[in-house]
């Protein structure tokens, strides 16, 4: 089967007039359906640029990017927008939910820009279904300000899922969360991945990367390491451990 994502010798050069910044210097990469990859690297390593390229927010200066066999380099601004809408789901570090907009309406957002738009009731039902997947269907009418960080990120994940994307892209999805909530969010990702959804995330936390199946280390715009994760952390198990520890410390009840 053809890979979902194919990067061939991608270069990205930012030209700010006086200095040229070579952010990505020839990255080639293939991603099969059902993979769960973490991109790691220090700041300035080019991982954000790589992520923006993968997310079709930015076009590479050189090289080809095939997303689901579509050559992204040939598309114009609007076609890129359609591609993002149909094939990609985005989860951001800062959640990026619309304020004063209910969780449900936030999840509906990508569908409003979709080419095949159903009736209002259908949109509602699909958004509700996605909120259900992330376990927040009882918070559908809450505003982001009424939700915890972990809940907001789960709404963002539901929003990313709503158009049934080929790839879910997460940019430091646990960056603004405490460790326990981070594990919960990783648990959501693992569950989605088990259902066959391809996920790529950027993180700089090793233990978070450990929940993924594959780790890609980027330095100075090049891939320095690409490995399968041995002894993957399983979010459910880690959470159970934390609960036990908390119970032992009488932080929470034992029920």
């Amino acid at each position, binding site marked *: 089967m053809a890979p979902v994502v194919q990067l061939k010798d991608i270069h990205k050069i930012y030209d700010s007039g006086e200095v040229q910044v070579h952010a990505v210097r020839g990255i080639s990469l293939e991603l099969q359906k059902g993979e769960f990859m973490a991109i790691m690297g220090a700041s300035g390593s080019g991982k954000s640029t790589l992520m*923006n390229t993968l997310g079709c927010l930015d076009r590479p200066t050189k090289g080809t990017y095939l997303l689901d066999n579509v050559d992204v380099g040939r598309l114009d*601004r609007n076609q890129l*927008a359609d591609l993002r809408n149909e094939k990609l789901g985005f989860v*951001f570090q800062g959640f*990026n939910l619309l304020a004063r*907009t209910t969780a449900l309406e936030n999840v509906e*957002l*990508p569908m*409003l820009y979709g080419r095949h*738009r159903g009736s209002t009731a259908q949109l509602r039902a699909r958004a509700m279904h996605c909120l259900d997947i992330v376990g927040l269907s009882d918070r559908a009418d809450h505003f982001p300000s009424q939700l915890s960080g972990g809940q907001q990120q789960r709404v963002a994940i539901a929003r990313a899922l709503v158009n049934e994307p080929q790839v879910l892209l997460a940019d430091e999805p646990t960056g603004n969360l405490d460790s326990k909530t981070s594990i919960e969010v990783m648990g959501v990702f693992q569950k989605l991945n088990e259902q066959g959804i391809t996920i790529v995330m950027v993180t700089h936390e090793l233990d978070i990367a450990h929940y993924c199946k594959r780790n890609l280390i980027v330095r100075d715009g090049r891939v320095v390491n690409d490995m399968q994760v041995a002894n993957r952390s399983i979010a459910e198990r880690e959470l159970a451990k934390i609960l036990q520890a908390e119970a032992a410390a009488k932080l929470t009840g034992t029920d």
Partner: protein
Amino acid sequence: MRIGSTVTVSLRALRRNTMRSILTALGIIIGVGAVIAMVSIGNGAKSTVEAQIASLGQNVLLIFSGSFNQGGARSGAFGAGTLTPDDAEAIAREVSHVAGVSPEVRSGAQVLANGLNWSTQILGEGADYLGIRQWPLSAGAMFTEQDTKSVGKVAIIGQTIVKQLFPDDDPIGQTLRIRNQPFRVIGVLQAKGLSVQGSDQDDIVIIPYTSAMKRVTRQTMLRSINVQAATPDTIDDVQAEITALLRQRHRTTEQTDDFTVRNQQEIAAAATATSQTLTLLLAAIAGVSLVVGGIGIMNIMLVSVTERTREIGIRMAVGAHGSDVLLQFLIEAVILSSMGGIMGILLGIGSSQLISKLNNWPVLVSTTSVIVAFVFSAAVGMFFGFYPARKAAQLDPIDALRYE
């Protein structure tokens, strides 16, 4: 284009900032309200003037004597009595499409009755006069052709005369003395109110023109002749025929005419011009406030675009085209301004009713002004919303997402 969902998106965005939306729309509300109120007041004034002009009668032509040229010195209108009762008869006889002719003389006189006296205007007219002026009687009957032929001592009086000379009893059948000549009151006119010039049209005594000439003014010439054309389309023909006939009778040319023929349109045009100017002036002032309202919308939309840069980034990341964002902000601006327009229309109608009540001014809310104000307010939103909307649409999604 996905207009349906964009409208939803815009409405949601406006709802998120209800207070700000209302305040932004306030500029338009006041602007549109002012335009509607001002135009209504102007229209009210205009309609009053028009009603007064209509009270001149329908399809009326006025032939004034005078304006003659003698040895290079030209007199003004009424400068000389040049029209004769024969002219009037000739017009009635020879000009086609004439529905009525009434020769006219005027004179101020002291009128006595019931031991009371009153200085008023004596109008000598033909039997057709009330028909031409479309001025109904409230009691009695108009004098007839017979009375004008027999120089009859009969009079029709206006409501002011009734009030001044016959305050307590029925004036019909009573005697009125004009320059010591007794006239019998045979009819009372309905109230007509003020004329275009503001004089009291009810302060009048109408007697046969023959009687006026022989018994009151002792003149042989007419002041003017009132002519009624049969239909509005024939006015111009009648005017031309009368001019030709009188030139022939008076042996004059266009340069030496000793009479003037005016039709009602000309008189009306002069009178309405003033009120039209007033209406335009009021509307222009109010229009300025509408433009200021529009600038208010632009200002808020620009702030809104900056403030919502991240939101725009999110929308673009999940698949919004530049045109979707443009449309969203444009629709927001148009919704704001047209909502403001609707509320402004209500405000304008309300305040013009209030002004009319308080000042006892006639006020006329015209459908045209309501439609124009609404369309204009939507256009203001479109115009002033475009720049901020385009600014939003041209944002780069990566930069917009990074914006703090």
